[in-house]
């Protein structure tokens, strides 16, 4: 059977959270195999854990100081793995900025059909079918490669299940692709220790705050509600622009797309570009003092009122029910 290659991102030497899901998706498309970029001599332990997640083979690109180069080591590793694997049914990567760009460059290099931000992949008689969403979930599009190897980035949280554990046998790659023509990473400012809160992309419940919160200090109210519910925290662009929270919390057209079970919009008007990032949530709740806010057009339950009285009462009621 042909290999379905998965580019595995490593965080502190361990496979990133998306890995199990990617290998589960790969198992639908071929023989799941992992591709990793590591410092020489450090592949052993990772390979073992990748085997447990379903990788029969682990293609290892040992590249010195790879984490000081942007994207190019991963492209070279994927290219070498495609060559070593012989027959490849698909290449799967996570939809992070880094992995998606590595996949895009790989597609050019090997002549592959690049399909971005898939929410589902299946193997059928006509080939591999990829499901994507357009305009923030307003349309669902199903497509397949017309030629070349499918190179697919998969949105986190879209495929359920796991692949059966496999050998995780190491196959050292000969990396010949040029990794030097790239940008250098001179410093990392990333929060690597896992936060107490679930991640925005995959959370079951998301509580988002908007300009209605009024200040960074008062935005804490949104965080308190999120913590009472065990939810992730999101925000509107106006809240991000005003500095109430970090940019990677922005939900919408130019931010993250979320589709949780429950989305609570606090002090958010519901501009069309915000709705583009959350309208596929199963249940939508809105709290806003302006009854004419467009957010109420998509809300399953809306409260017209002052968030500074409604939210504290809600937090108390939630806590009371939980205890």
């Amino acid at each position, binding site marked *: 059977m042909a290999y379905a290659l998965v580019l595995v991102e490593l965080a502190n030497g361990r496979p990133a959270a998306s890995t199990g899901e990617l290998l589960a998706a790969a198992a639908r498309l071929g023989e799941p195999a992992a591709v990793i970029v590591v410092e020489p001599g450090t592949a052993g332990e990772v390979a073992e854990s990748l085997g447990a997640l379903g990788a029969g083979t682990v293609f290892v690109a040992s590249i010195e100081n790879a984490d000081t180069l*942007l994207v190019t080591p991963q*492209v070279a590793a994927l290219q070498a793995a495609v060559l070593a694997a012989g027959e490849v049914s698909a290449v799967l990567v996570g939809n*992070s*900025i880094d992995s998606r760009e*590595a*996949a*895009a460059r790989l*597609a*050019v*290099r090997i002549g592959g*059909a*690049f*399909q*971005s931000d898939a929410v589902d992949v299946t193997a059928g008689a006509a080939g591999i*079918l*990829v499901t994507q969403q*357009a305009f923030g979930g*307003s*349309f*669902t*599009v*199903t*497509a*397949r490669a*017309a030629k*070349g190897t499918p190179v697919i980035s998969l949105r986190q949280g879209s495929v359920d299940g796991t692949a059966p554990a496999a050998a995780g046998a190491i196959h050292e790659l000969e990396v010949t692709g040029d990794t030097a*023509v*790239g*940008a*250098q*990473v*001179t*410093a*990392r*400012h*990333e929060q*690597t220790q896992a936060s107490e809160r679930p991640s925005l992309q995959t959370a079951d419940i998301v509580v988002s705050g908007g300009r209605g919160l009024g200040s960074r200090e008062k935005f804490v109210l949104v965080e308190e509600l999120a913590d009472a519910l065990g939810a992730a925290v999101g925000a509107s662009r106006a809240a991000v622009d005003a500095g109430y929270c970090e*940019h*990677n919390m922005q939900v919408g*057209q*130019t931010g993250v797309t979320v589709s949780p079970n*429950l989305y609570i919009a606090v002090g958010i008007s519901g501009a069309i570009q915000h709705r583009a990032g959350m309208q596929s949530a199963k249940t939508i709740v809105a709290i806003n003092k302006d*009854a004419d806010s467009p957010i*109420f*057009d998509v*809300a399953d*339950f*809306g*409260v017209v009122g002052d968030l500074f*009285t*409604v*939210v*504290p*009462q*809600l937090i*108390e*009621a*939630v806590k009371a*029910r*939980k205890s």
Partner: protein
Amino acid sequence: MKIAVLVKEVPDTWGDRRIDPSTKRVDRKGDLVIDEINEKSVEAALLVKEANAGSEVTVVTMGPSSALAAIRKALAMGADNGIHIVDDGLVGSDAMQTSAALAAALRPGGFELIITGNESTDGRTAAVPAMLAERLGLAQLTFLRTLSVTGDGVTGERMTDEGHLDVRASLPALVSVTEQIAEARFPNFRGIMAAKKKKVESLGLAGLGLPADETGAENSWSVVEDVAPRPARSGGTIVKDDGTAGTQLADFLAAAKLI
């Protein structure tokens, strides 16, 4: 320094955006505008030009004849000249094909710096900048929220899902910017008048040297099998706070088994 800035004409995000069920492509019959991220890309290019005397900014777009308006907007902001890639044979191009056409147009220009938006608001594929860097053999510094360019190098902060990275590369390089990069300036009357006289070169398949059997929807790398619109949401229960709305909301969540 020769700077190219890439812009795209997209359906206005304020409007009702659709995929045409017959062509299975983005419906372009509604209002079309220069993508907001590209107004910011042009601003970034103009700031680099202002910091590096003797620089020239070329606006590049690929799109139907209407896309000329996006170029004019960028010229009115202060860019110096334009390249419009336009050919019926390019209609329906995917990211791979678009990057090939852009690479063909940019290669002979010998640009030292190419600036793009991080992702368009219609496609959101966020792949063309990386593909273009690959095709042109350039260092890519994508998703930058800050950008500084001097004679021999580019530095900036690259957004990631967990924070940001400081990155650098020597020129020539390709940069993509995020919406934090800068607020775009408004074209003034003088700029708008001057834009009408600035030179815009039109390039078709022949000028690009692209074979016709590789371009356009028929030669796309992927085939769309199906397009389905999501059913519209119907409005729900709206209550006006009478002092108990917070409790009512908790009741609703409990009844729906959400807490």
